[in-house]
């Protein structure tokens, strides 16, 4: 998974490791980000401190949304604590499990490793935004029909990763599906059913 707006293409995990495990939030944005997102409420990232507060705006599930965040706040905690979007789960807090997967500009990212200030001005899509006009998205339907869930804790992340896959590759092979979902863990062991669900959705069954 790539950082949503990191033109250097450095993976976020490597990037954060470089930034001493991501705790020193003021350095996280670094010089890779050239653009100043004034319109979205965030000043030049290079000048930020971890405790600075910002009012950011972004598009969440198709709706213009504002949030007050500190530089150090992750997108995940902003979604869960402030915007009551609790479908996205916190599991590993480490970029390992994919339970916190959301789409930023259509690309899957781990929201536990993404700073809220980084999505200012961008499109964010969470599990809550998948239904359209009160109807389940075909991928959600397929997860239900193929029993791609047990406890359901990994499910929102799995659904989001599957959506990102099918948006980019509508007819994935089994190996491509496995690769696309390889950043998502399920402890209950629903993988086989999830592969079937992706296949079902891809065939529009």
């Amino acid at each position, binding site marked *: 998974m790539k950082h949503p707006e990191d033109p250097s293409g450095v993976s976020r995990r490597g990037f954060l490791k470089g930034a001493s495990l991501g705790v020193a939030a003021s350095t996280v944005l670094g010089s890779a980000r050239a653009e100043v997102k004034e319109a979205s409420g965030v000043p030049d990232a290079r000048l930020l401190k971890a405790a600075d507060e910002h009012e950011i705006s972004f598009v969440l599930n198709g709706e213009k949304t504002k949030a007050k965040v500190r530089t150090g706040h992750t997108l995940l905690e902003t979604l*869960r*604590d402030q915007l*009551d*979007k*609790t*479908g*996205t*789960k*916190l*599991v*590993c*807090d*480490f*970029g*390992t*499990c994919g*339970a916190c997967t959301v789409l930023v500009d259509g690309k899957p990212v781990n929201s536990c490793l993404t700073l809220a200030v980084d999505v200012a001005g961008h499109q964010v899509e*969470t*599990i*809550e935004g*998948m*239904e359209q006009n009160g109807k*389940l998205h075909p991928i*959600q339907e397929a*997860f*239900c*029909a193929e*029993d791609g*869930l*047990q*406890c*359901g*804790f*990994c*499910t*929102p992340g799995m*659904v989001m990763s599957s959506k990102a896959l099918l948006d980019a590759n509508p007819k994935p092979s089994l190996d491509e*599906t*496995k*690769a696309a*979902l*390889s950043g*998502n*863990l*399920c*402890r*209950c*062991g*629903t*993988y*086989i*059913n*999830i*592969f079937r669900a992706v296949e079902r959705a891809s065939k529009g069954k």
Partner: protein
Amino acid sequence: MKKDRTVKLKLGYGKDVKEVELELPDDEPTPWDMNSKLEVIGKRHQKVDAVFKVTGQAKYTHDLNLPGMLFGGFVRCPHAKAKVVSLDLEKAKSIAGVKAILPMRPRRNRRNPTAEWSVRYAGEPIGAIAAESRQALEAAIRAVLATAKFDILPHSARADQAMAEDAPAVHGNRPNVSRRPWRGDVTEALESGKLKVAEVTARTQVQTHSCLETHGSVASWDGAHLTLYTSTQNTFGCRRQLAGSIKDLSESQITVISEFMGGGFGSKFMAGYWSIAAARLAKDAGAPVKMMLDRREEQTDTGNRPDSIQEMKIGVDGDGKIQAFQVENIGTPGIGRGAGVRNPMIYDFGKTAVRSGEIATNAGGSQAFRAPGHPQGSFGLETAIDLAAEKAGIDPLALRMKNDAHVIRTLQYTDGARRIGWSKRQKTGSQTGRYRVGYGVAAARWGGMGSPRAEIKCRIAPDGSVQIRNGAQDLGVGTRTVLAIVAAEELGLQPGDITTFIGNTNDPRGPASGGSTTAASISPAIRQAAFLASAELKDLVAAHLKCKAKDLVLAKGSVRHVKDASKSMSFKDACRLIRQGEISTMGKRRRNYGSKGTYLNGVGGVQFARCTVDCDFGIVKVDRIVALQDCGKVINAMTAEGQVFGGVIQGLSYALFEDRVMDRHLGHCINGDLETYKIAGPDDMPEIDAVLYDIANGGNNCSVVGIGEPTMIPTAAAIAGAVHNATGVRVTALPMTPDKVLEALEEGGK
């Protein structure tokens, strides 16, 4: 009035049929048997709560955000063994936003509240704090630890350290290693010279449950009433434990709620110290408190499957009959009790000698974990069986079949061998080259027949709506859906017509989800509740249509006369006849009928594995698993299959990846996160062929048995057998990581 009646049942599987007679009271529905024509049972049904889970609407304890809620957390000892010389929890209050503190001096050290007290593992909780924000909480924990003084003592965090001669004792002055006496003696048989004897020491690792939702609770008081939202496998057990732990609080003052929970696997049977602390802090602060453990706490302090060392000898005679089996096993429950390795005695061993023991270590205590003791015991036992077969020059499948008379497993051995392609299996050790393919097999047995601890409420309203209520929990395996399916069958409806309620102790009591007993415990009670309700409905219809109630049946959404088609009405119309409020019945769970009237005892399962081993890099890739499982009567084919997949995948993960590692110097868990504690992911998945044996066993009115656990037992052993067959060397320790595979190859000259 309850009268006994005699029912005749046809039980069994395939051609193996048994006709039995059972005496049953009138209020017990006639048990389903091989002749039953079932409309809903056994088909593939979507889970009734699936939509909540795919839309993110399902609220887990983790997701709760009550008004004014505080965040709770623990001060934990950073040392594996230490005396707490001074600890000033009041320091926490110097941080803005801290609302309550809770000392957690262990009971064993409470007699003298000013004396030093002992801590037995790194991460043991020594105090709790509740604050307005996570940031304040973290700052408070840091502030307390910054001034705490510990007297650090030498520890025994690892099994090898605890077993050393002058090892520091974990519990007072007690020796770390305890062994129970031998049961049985097979020395004579093994030394008679008449048997081919194989000898092996197998080792397994500590496995953590790694539930994706960590352990945790939200406690909220309303006057003297406590509501505890918690991620649990045992709502009623939590209520009991809380009442026993908090002064002046009785069970009637507590409601435990667990509508959705993110995985347990045996680790969530108790309210736990986190719930008790949340309740106390909430009372003190006058605000709800959320106490969710973080990932590191989850990995180090919520239980695990103990490791094991199993020393075995097995003797086989010239006909391939096992005549003697000896095992001495030992494992580490940390500071807990019960490392209990269970070598499942599936095969007819002739004479056996067993001795078990435990090694106390300075590490978080063990907890029940999916088939406690069995996967490790199975890996040991099946390793010995494979080596015995090699010694005796017999095919390992043939040796098993020769020594296992279980009717169902006998069918499964043949069925599975065909499905996996056992005939393509090459002679062990005959392959050379980088990639080698092998086949392995292992077996399992289980109980899972369920217990009488379940009551079900069934309510039918005049508008035709049906409610089924039980206060137990759904771990995600589809328990809620079982409520709907069983009731629908009995009432002639579809599962979607039933509204289900689960996970709230204000509803009728239900079992703890352990031992694969939930479905088997509740199903017969659901059936009885619906059966009693349908009898009341039939009476109303009979009076209305002027016919006999016994001539009426509920089927396909209607109440029909068996002979006279004109005397029939839809279920909805029938419900309009209900005058006094509603029909409300309580289904009770009888004891299982016992072995006399039933078919078979012990739930049988067999698994086959095909693996490819990359002998240059020591990487084991599982290509295919065939899992054949006695399911009793399948209630929902889709979720039954899901249980098989889940068991197999956790078994595969245990076989190849998982391993909790303790640091020998500091005594810390080195891999307390999901990055370095690896569990199987999408890339590791083989093809899995789940073969459900749908068996009317007559054990209870639904013939249901639980299958969550048995499906995990033999997987690691079957994979190990396949690796052995491919490479010609035996990897005798789990997980079978590349280093171990390469080492075995080198030692074996392969």
